[in-house]
């Protein structure tokens, strides 16, 4: 028999879950409701009155060239961040998995970047790549390349991708390593005896058996790239040059807080809300039956 604690009455359990409910309500439901409400209005320039426009904000957004460009930027950015951070993490995890001595130290060192807040990471990378005083910029300069992410759109994108992916590698690494270590050693040995060399084994045995982990990380990393990279972009490029690194989340901030276009900003939040909901549903649906072999 499962042992359960049962409460008499409703007040104590209610009291116990109250803090969580209050926090969720204040910091999630209230702002989300506000955003949905505001997305249906256009406020006047002085913020004194609001005019009902229905889905007008959305119509405007979807036909806005800049907004569509931001969608594309976001897609490129999140694909790059996900691929880079997962690729590097998988590579390191495969190395660590083969390592027998000193794997503990190796692992600990790899986890450190995860503890660095995105904004701090941004500043760190900004310093290294600063166009005038950055160490890396200077070395690249010695090689005859003039690094300038303030002006060059491609370089700006590259820098925010690297800075965002960097902090994520640790997290992905831990999951990949755990996934690798869950694969029975004898299965790998059987494949080796069957004639498969390292790369063939990786392609036909290890990677397929790792796919539940990979899929989980894919979703988690896309969500990260969509929403949690604000700090990095804000500190390094501020969305520029032009709009080259203005991803959707950054545009919410730029249009709403800088441009003071609250109606449009709210509509953008609602769209993001929809995107994250879809991603979450996909993730949960998959996790429910993640063992697919």
């Amino acid at each position, binding site marked *: 028999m499962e042992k359960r604690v049962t409460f008499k009455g409703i007040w104590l359990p209610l009291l116990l879950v109250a803090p969580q409910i209050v926090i969720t309500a204040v910091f999630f439901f209230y702002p989300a409701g506000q955003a949905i409400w505001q997305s249906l209005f256009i406020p006047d320039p002085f913020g004194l009155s609001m005019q009902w426009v229905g889905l007008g904000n959305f119509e405007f957004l979807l036909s806005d060239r800049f907004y569509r460009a931001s969608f594309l930027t976001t897609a490129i950015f999140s694909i790059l961040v996900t691929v880079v951070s997962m690729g590097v993490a998988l590579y390191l995890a495969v190395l660590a998995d083969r390592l027998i001595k000193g794997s503990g130290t190796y692992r600990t060192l790899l986890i450190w970047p995860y503890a660095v807040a995105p904004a701090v990471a941004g500043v760190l990378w900004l310093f290294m790549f600063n166009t005038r005083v950055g160490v890396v910029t200077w070395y690249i300069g010695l090689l005859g390349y003039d690094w300038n992410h303030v002006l060059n759109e491609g370089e700006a994108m590259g820098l925010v991708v690297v800075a965002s992916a960097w902090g994520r590698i640790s997290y992905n690494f831990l999951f990949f390593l755990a996934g690798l270590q869950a694969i029975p050693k004898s299965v790998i*040995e059987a494949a080796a*005896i069957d004639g498969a060399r390292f790369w063939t084994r990786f392609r036909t045995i290890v990677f397929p*058996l790792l796919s539940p982990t990979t899929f989980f990380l894919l979703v988690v990393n896309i969500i990260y790239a969509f929403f949690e990279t604000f700090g990095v972009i804000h500190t390094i490029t501020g969305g520029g040059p032009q709009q080259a690194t203005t991803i959707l989340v950054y545009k919410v901030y730029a249009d709403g807080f800088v441009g003071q276009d609250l109606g449009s900003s709210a509509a953008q939040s609602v769209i993001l809300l929809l995107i994250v909901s879809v991603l979450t549903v996909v993730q949960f649906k998959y996790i429910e039956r993640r063992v697919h*072999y």
Partner: protein
Amino acid sequence: MATVALENLRKSYGKTEVIHGVDIDIADGEFIVIVGPSGCGKSTLLRMVAGLETVTSGEVRINDRAVNDVEPMDRDIAMVFQNYALYPHMSVFDNMAYGLKIAKVPTDEIKKRVDTAAEILQLEPYLTRRPRELSGGQRQRVAMGRAIVRKPAVFLFDEPLSNLDAKLRVQMRLEIKSLQRDLGVTSLYVTHDQVEAMTLADRMIVMNAGVADQIGKPLDVYSDPATEFVAGFIGSPPTNFLQAKRLGRHIEDGAKIGIRPEHIRLVPQTETDLAGTVVYSEPLGAETLVHLKLLDGQDATVRQDGALPIPAEGETCGLSWEPASEMVFGKGGSRIRS
């Protein structure tokens, strides 16, 4: 077809040596069983032959070619693991075909070979299933199938039957034996079960703490064990060991007399000097095992024909045997022959 030779094979993990020098020449088509208690180094020995474990010193030769530094895939071997190690994400067919696909065998040839193996192993109805949809016995067959389709020079088995129930184990044992006979592939088979070893082996290696105590034909090993360990390990119930001194023999300090349970006869107490009290008897039908406590406190087991009267508990009997069936072991456990 292949010969395998091990020459003074040793293995150390760090500073501890776990295999202390094993030598054997295995003839083409021979079935060798490595038997011994848990932790004696059977798997380690086999894995060195497979190339899954590095050789610390000595040499492994397959077909007179030293393979110490050859990768497992280049040794022309196949191995059946204790937990079968099937590829969980592949169908039974793909599990068996995997090695052939890597070897770039033509598709129709792959299909032919897998189908043949499936027929021999009665796996035809399951070819499209995943390993988790099979019973333990069926998984075991798939592992066997994976080994035979590749037509390797050497089969290696690491306790392939230990996860099966007793009845299935006996059945699979027979199947493995006849399969190996038909295919004529040189085999090394690891087990801790002495019955498996006795029934399967052309020759067996009895391992004791990293040393090959004895290598020989099963019946030779049984009737003429080289050490006290072998005499005690091979045979069930095990050999009785009695202190030579207490039997009034003066051989050397700590020497023991080994005598197999079936070689002792229970006789009236008056006919012999050695007597014991029956602790309990186990009538097994065809035979009866009688456990006695000798008057000087030592234990002994007697195996006698089931048709003979079963002695009652507490009864005192005399024990007698032919001097020729005695085995004398020195203090260190090695056999003393006169």
